């Protein structure tokens, strides 16, 4: 089996490829709601969105729904699922609660959505790192065998977001380490908690690409990075503003 993320540049912190390998491993496993094959296909579609003409036309339009067409795709995922992946990848700031509610069926639940979202954003974040460094995109992992476990955390409740969330006080014993032992968490992390592995994926990547959860709330630390905290937050703010992210 290929070993992923074998960087030759000694300046790349070792925790980065380690985190990326762990993330690829999570993506390669059967999920909570999607098979491993489907998760890899979702990852592939998130890359297809980058040069999808239909996505480009939509992004340029006053309303994304005013443009008709079909996405550039290369997988067996349904057209609806491909559309969800491409919208998240290319036009997330114009998603809405009504749009999402209209998607849900017995086969595509809020938990399917959260798990799909976790895969899409993980691949985008790793790919952007490679793009910045001028490296080729990493080959996607091979799917592992097994069935989705279809486990929905019993502590998932509405907390004002479009999807239910599990707050640290509502964790089941099996998910006790979900928030790395933190007694409180930000909504942006809890947003993925309907699928515990999606929180795991997020924290693995954030801990290496940004800061460990315990360092995030301490403005005096830069987590030992080569950038100081002001520089880190400046870059973070720039990316957020570019994406018109209110949160």
């Amino acid at each position: 089996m290929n070993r992923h993320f074998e960087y030759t540049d000694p300046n790349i912190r070792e925790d980065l490829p380690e985190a990326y390998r762990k993330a690829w491993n999570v993506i390669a496993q059967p999920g909570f709601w999607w098979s491993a094959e489907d998760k890899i296909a979702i990852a592939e579609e998130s890359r297809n969105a980058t040069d999808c003409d239909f996505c480009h036309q939509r992004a340029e339009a006053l309303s994304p729904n005013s443009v008709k067409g079909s996405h550039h795709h290369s997988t067996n995922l349904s057209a609806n699922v491909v559309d969800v992946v491409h919208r998240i990848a290319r036009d997330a700031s114009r998603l809405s609660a009504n749009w999402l509610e209209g998607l849900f069926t017995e086969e595509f639940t809020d938990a399917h959505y959260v798990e799909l979202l976790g895969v899409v954003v993980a691949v985008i974040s790793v790919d952007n790192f490679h793009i910045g460094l001028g490296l080729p995109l990493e080959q996607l992992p091979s799917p592992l065998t097994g069935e989705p476990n279809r486990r929905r955390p019993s502590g998932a409740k509405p907390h004002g977001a479009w999807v239910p969330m599990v707050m640290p006080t509502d964790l089941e014993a099996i998910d006790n380490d979900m928030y790395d032992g933190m007694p409180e968490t930000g909504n942006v992390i809890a947003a993925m908690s309907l699928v515990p592995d999606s929180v795991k994926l997020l924290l693995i990547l954030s801990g290496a690409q940004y800061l460990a959860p315990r360092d995030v709330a301490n403005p005096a630390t830069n987590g030992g990075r080569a950038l100081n905290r002001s520089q880190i937050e400046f870059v973070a703010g720039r990316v957020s503003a570019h994406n018109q992210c209110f949160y």
Partner: protein
Amino acid sequence: MVDDEQIPEGVEAGVELRNFADAILMQPAEEIVRTRKQLVEKLGEPAMIDAAAVVGNFQRMVRIADSTGIPLDEPVLMISQSIREDLGINNFNASANSPKLPLLKRILGRLMAPFAATMLKKMAASRQSK
């Protein structure tokens, strides 16, 4: 919105960081090469690598926030009121996901503007110490 040229003030190598982040987001290959080189010359390669990692991180986080419609907590909404207004952040589509503050709290938020940065830091420290 704040003038682009004013943004990097107060941040060492702010211009180079901004240009590199923008290049990754817009993805013209030659611009990425050019801005990467400028950033390496200014701060060194480890800093450039960390900057690329932060860009990757927030390309993920913003999509999670926008795709799940998470609201800002009310205390943060109130304290950050003036900052959001001044930067035009309240005009973003996703502002609809957070509750609208009543007039009194908006006024209070304005009055607290000079202390916003300190109060946000204290809130973060309080969360960390729990």
